[in-house]
C-alpha cells in the first residue's frame, strides 16, 4: 500500500480536531477513488512545475476519470490544472475551452470570468503583439485585490493573485515591472517581519519569490520570456 505522506506536515485545528467520536471513521479512511484522484492531480502538479507539460496533461486528464469523482467539485483541481497548463503552453484557445466547465452550474461566475478575461488578454497579445490588454488586466487585478496585496496587506490567499500578476508580466516579457513588483513585495515582507520580530526573518516563501526574481533576471539577460513563473502553481 502506498504511503499517504501528508499527515505530519499539517495541523488541523478547530472543530475538525474534535470530531472523531467512537461511531465515526478516522480521516485516514478516505474514499480510495478520491485518494487516487488527488494523487494523480498532485503528480500532475509536480510534473507541471518541472516543465513536463505533456505528462502533466495526461495525469490531469486521468484524474478526471468519472470513476474517481463522486461530486462535480472534485474535478475542479484537475480542470484548473489543465487551464493553467494551456496558459503555460500559450495555447489560449484550449485554455478558454477548458474554462467552460467553470461556467457551467455556476451561480456567480465572477472569478471564472475574471480568469477568462486574463486569458483573452493573453490571446490578444499573442495575436497582435500588443501587450496593452495584458497590462490593463494586471492593473485590474492589482486594484480589485489591493486590500489583500502588498503594499497594503498579505494573507494566505494573496499568493494566488501575486503569482497570477507575475505570470502575466512573464508572458509579455515585462521583466522590469515584474522585478519591481517582487521588490515591493519583499520590502513589505521585511517591514512586516521587523514590526513583528524586530528583524527580517526570511523563509521558504521568500526563497520562492527570489527564485522567480532570478528567473526574470535570466530571461531579461537572454531576451527570452515565460520561464520565470513556469514553476508556479496557480
Amino acid at each position, binding site marked *: 500500500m502506498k*504511503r*499517504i*505522506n501528508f*499527515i*505530519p*506536515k*499539517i*495541523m*488541523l*485545528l*478547530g*472543530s*475538525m*480536531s*474534535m*470530531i*472523531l*467520536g467512537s*461511531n*465515526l*471513521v*478516522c*480521516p*485516514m*479512511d*478516505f*474514499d480510495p477513488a*478520491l485518494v487516487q484522484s*488527488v494523487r494523480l492531480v498532485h503528480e500532475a*502538479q509536480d510534473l507541471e512545475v518541472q516543465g513536463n507539460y505533456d505528462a502533466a496533461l495526461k495525469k490531469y486528464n486521468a484524474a478526471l476519470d468519472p470513476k474517481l469523482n*463522486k*461530486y462535480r*467539485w*472534485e474535478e*475542479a*483541481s484537475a480542470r*484548473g*490544472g489543465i487551464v493553467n497548463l494551456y496558459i503555460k503552453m500559450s495555447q489560449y484557445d484550449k485554455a478558454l475551452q477548458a474554462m467552460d466547465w*467553470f461556467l457551467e452550474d*455556476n*451561480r456567480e*461566475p*465572477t*472569478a*471564472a470570468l475574471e*480568469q477568462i478575461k486574463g486569458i483573452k488578454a493573453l490571446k490578444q497579445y499573442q495575436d497582435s503583439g500588443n501587450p496593452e490588454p495584458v497590462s490593463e488586466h494586471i492593473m485590474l487585478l492589482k486594484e480589485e485585490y489591493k*486590500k489583500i496585496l502588498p503594499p497594503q496587506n*498579505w*494573507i*494566505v*490567499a494573496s*499568493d*494566488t493573485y501575486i503569482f497570477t500578476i507575475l505570470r502575466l508580466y512573464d508572458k509579455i516579457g515585462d521583466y522590469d515591472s515584474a522585478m519591481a513588483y517582487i521588490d515591493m513585495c519583499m520590502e513589505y515582507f521585511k517591514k*512586516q517581519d521587523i514590526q513583528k520580530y524586530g528583524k527580517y526573518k526570511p*523563509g521558504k*516563501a*521568500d526563497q520562492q519569490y527570489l527564485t522567480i526574481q532570478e528567473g526574470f533576471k535570466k530571461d531579461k539577460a537572454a531576451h527570452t520570456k515565460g520561464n520565470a513563473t513556469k514553476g*508556479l*502553481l*496557480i
Partner: protein
Amino acid sequence: MAQAIVNVAEAFENYVTLRNGTLRTLAQTAVSFLGQALKGVPGMISNAVDFFISQLDIFYQVIDKTALDQKMKEMYENLRRLVEPYTGYNWTNLASTKAGLVVNIWGSKDQLTKGNILGGYIREIGGYSVNDRNKPLFNIEIEGANHFDYIKNVRSAEDWIKDFPDQVQRIQAQQKNETISQFVAQLILNSNDKDKLRAFLGQQIATHKAHLDSSGTWIVTIL
C-alpha cells in the same frame, strides 16, 4: 512498538476521561489513529502518532493559555515520554519545526464554534498566522456543516433512525454528511503543501464553491 501504542492509548483515555466529553473526543481521535496504525498499515504508525500529537500540541497550548486543566499538561508529558523513544522525534517545539502550515476548519452550524470557544476563525495560533507567509494559517468555514459532518459518519442504521426518526430528515442529514465529509477529505488530502492547498482552494473559488471573505477566510458552500 505495538505495546507502546497501546500504553499511549490507555494513558490518553485515562486522563481524558477526567474531563468532559469534548476532551474525550480527543482521546478517541488518538485511539482511532492508533487503532488504524495497529491494523498494520506500513509506514502509517509514526504518521498517525505525529498527527494526533500535533493536534494535542495545539490544544495543549490553548488549554495552557486558558488554564482549563492541569491534567492536560500531565497527559501531554506522559504521551511525549511514551512515544518519543519509539519515534526519535523531538516534540518540544512541534509547531515551529514540523508542520508547514496549519489548517483551521469549522462548520457554520457547529455549536462548538459559537463564541470561538473551540474552533471558528483564528488569526494566529502556535506561531502560525493568516499573515505569515512562512508559517501560514488557513481558515476554512464550511457553510451548513455541523459538528458531526466533517468526517463520514458510519453510525449504524439503528442509530441514524434513533437520531433522525423522520425519514426525510434522515436522508437529508445522511446526504449532507456524505457531501461535506467528502469535501473535507479532499481538503485534507490537498493540505500537504501550501501551494497545492492554495491552488485547490483557488479552483474552488473559480467554481464558486468557495469565496474569500474580508478576514481572508475561505467560505465553502458545497451544499
